[in-house]
C-alpha cells in the first residue's frame, strides 16, 4: 500500500490534482444547505481529499480514528454508496493531520440545547457552528460525532467523484453524460462499454466535478446494511497493524517512568539500571526518566531499577480527601443551571424524597497500552501513534522537541481501544522526546500496564444530591446538584491553553437534557477545583450523570408507587415520543410485565445522550448467595442506522464497558498516587460474567444519533435498579461490589 504520509502531504498542497501515481478527489461543497456565518478560507471547500485512486485500486481516506467502533467501515461505505464501488474492492486508510478533516459535529455538541429537542433550525445551527471546528483544526474523534460529521461530507465526496468519472468517460467515448451509468467501480455506456474508475482516474482528476444531490435513503445499497468490516480479516489473523506493531530498521525499544503523583522529579539514581546488559541509554526527561534498550521487557525492568525521588502531588493525597472536596463543592455557587423549568424553590405538595450519590475515579484501561514510535532524522521526525487527534499530536510533539509542525509527520495506526484516552498526546510526546536522545534510530516507546494504569487522564469522581416530590404516581419536582472537577475545562486548558468560563454543559449532560416532562425540573452543575488529571472517558459527564439521574428517577417511581418502566415512558410521552417508544419497546422485548422468580431481579435504565435514546433492562440472578448478570435487553433509537451490526455491537460494547465500571471499577488514591497497577486490581467483565444480550435498533428519530457512547450511561443505573429489585438495597455509591456479592 502506498505511503499515506507521502501521498497526503503533497495532495494537500495541490488539492485535487494528480499526485505520485495516484489521484485524489476533492469535495466541492463542504455543506450545501446550512448558511455559513463564517467565511471559509481561500480554496477551503476543495481541500478535502477523501478518495485516492491508483493502479492498485481505490482507497478511501477516513478523517476519523478506528478504535474498534467500526468507523472505517461506515465512513468508507458513505463514499462507496454514492460512488457505486464494489465493496470488496474498497480499501481504507487513516487521514493525516489536516484541516480538511475537521470534526464539525463535535463543536456543535457544545451548544446548550437539549439534543432531543433539536428542531431543524437548531440542527442547522449546530451544523453551521460546527464549521468553527474547521478553523480550530478539530480533527478529533470523540463525542460520538464521527457519523454526524461525515454523513453528508463523505457522501458528497463519493457523488462528486462519480460525476467526475462520468464526465471523463463521456469525453473519452463521445457520449452524453446523461446516457452513462455507474456500477461496481465502472462507468457503463449505453452500448455496454465498461470503463473502470482506475483507467479514468487521471482524466477525472482534472475535471471540474459538479455538485449533485445525494441519493435518497430508499436507493441505498450499502448503507443501512451490515457490511463485512474492512478491518476484520487483519484483526482475525494478527496482521492488523497497531502503533505497537510498527517495525522499522534498526529500531530500539524504550519506555518511560513518570511521577505517579503527577508532579515533577526531584532526583534519580540510575546506576543499577545502567549496568543492565542490553540497556543503551537512560534518558533524563526532567519530569521523569526514559530507557532505551534492546527489547521492551528489559526497558521495563531497567525503568523499575532506577531509584527516583518524586515531588508530591498538588492535589489532596487520598481518595477520601478528594471526595470530601467534591462533596463540599455541592454547596458552592453553581457553574450552571442549564435546566430550570418551573420553580423548584416553591413548596410543592406531595411525598418528598432525597438521595445522595457518589462515583469513583475510573481508568480507561484500553487493551493496547499507550505507546508510540518516533524516528528523528535531522530536523524532521516521523511518529506512528494510535491517536484520536493527529493535528494536536503533531503540534504537541513538535513543540516538545523544538521542531516546526511541518517537519513532523504523524502516521495514525489502528487503535487497540481508545474510549477517549487516545485523544491525549502525552504518550506520543514521550516517544518524540526519547527519539531525540538517539537521532537516526527509530524508538518504539511502550508503557508498561502499570504505567498506563497510573498515568491516565481519569474519569473524575463525582457526587450528587437530589430532591424530588411525587404525588398520585407522578413526579412534580426534581432538583439535582452535581459536583465534580470539570473535564471540559481541564482538557481545553491542556489542549488549547484556555478554558471558557461559561456554563459547562458536558458536566451536566444526561441530567439536564433528559426528555422528561417534570413541571419543576432543575439541574445545577458545581465544578470542583482539584487538578487530578482527568479526561474524556466513554460518554464523559453522562457516565456519572446517567447513573445519578436515572437512579433517582427509579427512586421517585418507587416512592410514587408506580411501575418504573411506565413511569419513565409516561414522562417521555409528551416531551419526546421517540424516547417513549424506546422505553416501551424494551419493555416488550424483556416481557417486563411478567412476574419474575424470587431469585431474579430486573431494572430498567434510560438515557438520551449524544443524540440517541437508549433503554436497557438488566436481569440479575442470585445463586448460592452470589449475584450474577444474566441478561440485558437494549432498545436504542439512532435516527438512521448506517450499519445495523456495528450499531448493535457498539450498544453491547458500551453496556459491557459501563457495567464493568459500575460493578467493579474504582481508581483510588493514597499518598497522591493511584493505588491500582494492573488488571488484577482493575478488572472488567469477562466471558463467564458477561450476560446474554438482545438488541433492537429503531430509526424513528429525525437526526443521525451517536452510537459509540450512548450504550454506556443507562447501563449503570439499570444494573443498580435490578440489584435493588432483587435485594431491596439501594446502593448509591459505586462500584456495586462494595455493597453486593457479585460474580465477577
Amino acid at each position, binding site marked *: 500500500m502506498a505511503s499515506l504520509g507521502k501521498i497526503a502531504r503533497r495532495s494537500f498542497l495541490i488539492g485535487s490534482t494528480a499526485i505520485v501515481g495516484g489521484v485524489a478527489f476533492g469535495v466541492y461543497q463542504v455543506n450545501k444547505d446550512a448558511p455559513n456565518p463564517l467565511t471559509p478560507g481561500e480554496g477551503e471547500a476543495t481541500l478535502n481529499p477523501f478518495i485516492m485512486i491508483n493502479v492498485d485500486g481505490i482507497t478511501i481516506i477516513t478523517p476519523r480514528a478506528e478504535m*474498534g467502533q467500526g468507523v472505517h467501515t461506515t465512513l468508507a461505505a458513505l463514499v462507496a454508496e454514492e460512488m457505486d464501488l464494489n465493496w470488496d474492492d474498497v480499501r481504507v486508510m487513516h487521514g493525516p493531520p489536516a484541516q480538511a478533516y475537521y470534526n464539525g459535529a463535535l463543536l456543535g455538541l457544545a451548544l446548550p440545547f437539549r439534543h432531543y429537542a433539536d428542531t431543524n433550525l437548531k440542527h442547522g445551527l449546530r451544523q453551521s457552528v460546527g464549521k468553527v471546528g474547521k478553523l480550530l483544526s478539530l480533527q478529533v474523534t470523540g463525542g460520538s460525532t464521527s457519523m454526524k460529521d461525515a454523513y453528508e461530507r463523505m457522501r458528497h465526496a463519493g457523488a462528486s467523484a462519480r460525476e467526475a468519472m462520468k464526465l471523463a468517460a463521456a469525453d473519452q467515448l463521445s457520449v452524453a453524460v446523461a446516457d452513462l451509468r455507474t456500477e461496481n467501480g465502472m462507468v457503463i455506456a449505453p452500448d455496454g462499454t465498461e470503463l473502470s474508475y482506475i483507467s479514468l482516474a487521471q482524466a477525472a482528476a482534472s475535471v471540474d466535478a459538479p455538485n449533485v444531490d445525494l441519493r435518497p435513503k430508499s436507493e441505498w445499497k450499502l448503507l443501512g446494511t451490515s457490511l463485512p468490516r474492512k478491518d476484520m480479516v487483519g484483526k482475525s489473523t494478527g496482521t492488523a497493524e497497531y502503533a505497537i506493531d510498527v517495525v522499522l530498521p534498526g529500531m530500539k525499544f524504550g519506555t518511560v517512568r513518570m511521577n505517579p503523583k503527577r508532579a515533577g522529579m526531584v532526583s534519580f539514581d540510575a546506576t543499577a539500571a545502567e549496568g543492565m546488559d542490553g540497556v543503551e541509554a537512560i534518558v533524563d526527561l526532567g519530569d521523569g526518566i526514559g530507557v532505551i534498550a534492546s527489547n521492551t521487557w528489559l526497558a521495563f525492568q531497567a525503568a523499575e531499577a532506577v531509584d527516583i525521588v518524586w515531588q508530591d502531588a498538588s492535589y489532596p493525597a487520598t481518595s477520601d480527601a478528594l471526595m470530601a472536596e467534591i462533596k463540599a463543592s455541592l454547596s458552592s455557587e453553581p457553574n450552571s443551571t442549564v435546566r430550570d423549568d418551573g420553580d423548584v424553590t416553591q413548596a410543592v405538595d406531595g411525598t418528598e424524597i432525597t438521595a445522595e450519590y457518589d462515583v469513583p475515579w475510573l481508568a480507561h484501561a484500553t487493551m493496547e497500552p499507550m505507546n508510540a514510535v518516533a524516528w528523528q532524522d535531522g530536523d524532521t521526525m516521523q511518529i506512528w501513534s494510535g491517536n484520536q487527534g493527529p493535528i494536536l499530536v503533531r503540534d504537541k510533539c513538535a513543540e516538545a522537541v523544538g521542531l516546526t509542525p511541518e517537519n513532523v509527520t504523524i502516521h495514525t495506526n489502528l487503535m487497540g481501544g481508545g474510549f477517549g484516552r487516545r485523544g491525549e498526546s502525552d504518550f506520543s510526546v514521550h516517544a518524540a522526546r526519547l527519539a531525540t536522545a538517539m537521532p537516526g534510530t527509530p524508538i518504539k516507546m511502550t508503557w508498561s500496564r502499570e504505567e498506563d494504569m497510573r498515568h491516565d487522564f481519569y474519569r473524575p469522581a463525582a457526587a450528587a444530591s437530589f430532591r424530588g416530590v411525587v404525588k398520585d404516581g407522578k413526579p412534580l419536582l426534581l432538583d439535582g446538584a452535581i459536583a465534580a472537577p470539570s473535564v471540559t475545562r481541564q482538557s481545553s486548558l491542556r489542549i488549547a491553553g484556555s478554558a471558557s468560563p461559561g456554563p459547562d454543559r458536558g458536566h451536566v449532560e444526561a441530567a439536564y437534557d433528559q426528555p422528561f416532562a417534570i413541571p419543576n425540573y432543575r439541574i445545577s452543575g458545581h465544578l470542583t477545583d482539584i487538578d487530578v488529571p482527568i479526561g474524556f472517558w466513554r460518554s464523559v459527564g453522562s457516565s456519572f450523570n446517567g447513573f445519578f439521574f436515572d437512579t433517582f428517577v427509579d427512586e421517585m417511581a418507587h416512592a410514587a408507587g408506580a411501575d418504573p418502566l411506565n413511569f419513565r415512558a409516561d414522562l417521555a410521552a409528551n416531551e419526546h415520543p421517540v424516547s417513549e417508544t424506546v422505553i416501551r419497546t424494551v419493555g416488550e422485548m424483556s416481557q417486563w410485565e411478567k412476574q419474575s422468580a424470587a431469585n431474579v431481579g430486573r431494572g430498567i435504565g434510560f438515557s438520551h445522550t449524544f443524540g440517541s435514546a437508549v433503554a436497557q433492562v438488566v436481569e440479575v440472578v442470585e445463586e448460592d448467595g452470589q449475584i450474577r448478570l444474566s441478561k440485558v435487553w437494549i432498545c436504542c433509537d439512532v435516527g438512521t442506522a448506517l450499519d445495523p451490526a456495528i450499531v448493535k455491537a457498539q450498544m453491547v460494547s458500551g453496556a459491557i464497558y459501563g457495567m464493568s465500571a459500575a460493578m467493579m471499577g474504582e481508581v483510588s488514591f493514597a499518598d497522591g498516587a493511584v493505588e491500582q497497577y494492573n488488571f488484577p486490581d482493575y478488572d472488567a467483565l469477562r466471558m463467564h460474567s458477561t450476560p446474554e444480550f438482545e438488541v433492537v435498533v429503531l430509526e424513528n428519530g429525525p437526526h443521525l444519533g451517536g452510537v459509540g457512547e450512548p450504550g454506556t450511561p443507562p447501563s449503570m443505573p439499570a444494573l443498580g435498579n435490578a440489584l435493588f429489585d432483587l435485594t431491596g438495597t439501594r446502593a448509591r455509591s459505586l462500584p456495586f461490589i462494595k455493597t453486593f456479592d457479585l460474580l465477577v
Partner: protein
Amino acid sequence: MPTTLTINGEAKTIDLPDNVPLLWALRDGLGLTGTKFGCGVAACGACTVHIDGQAVRSCQIGLADVWGSVTTIEGLGSPDLPATIQQAWIDNQVAQCGYCQSGQIMQAADLLSVNLSPTDQDIDDAMQGNLCRCGTYPRIRAAIKDAAAKLKDA
C-alpha cells in the same frame, strides 16, 4: 547467547538474553507482532501462543524455559488462507478494536483441539483468562460454536 526455537514450523534464532519472555522475543526479536502485550502479569491473555499445541501466556515464559515448538497467530493461518477458527471469527464479525483477538483465537483453538462440542460452561472455563475491553464476548462465544461445528463436519 542466542536461542534457537521452532516457531510456526521454522527454526528461528533469537539474539536476546535467555531470560527475556517469549512474548518480547517474538515481538521485538523476530518482528512477529501478531502476539500482543496487554499486562505482562498473566492477567489478560493477549499474549497467548501455543507451545506443543497447548495455550500458554508467552509473557510468563523466559526463552530458556520454552519446552517445545511454538505456534503464534501468524502460524495458524493467513489473510489469504485463514484457519477454520479464524474464518469463524471473520464470519461472525467478532473483532472491534481487535487487540485482544489474537489471544482469544489462540485460547479458543486450544479449547477446540480437545473439545469439538463445547458447552457454554466449557467456553466460560476456557476463556475467562482472556480480557476484552471492547466487550466482544457474545460474538466470541458464537464464533467458537461456529468453528466447532465446522471442524466437526470436516
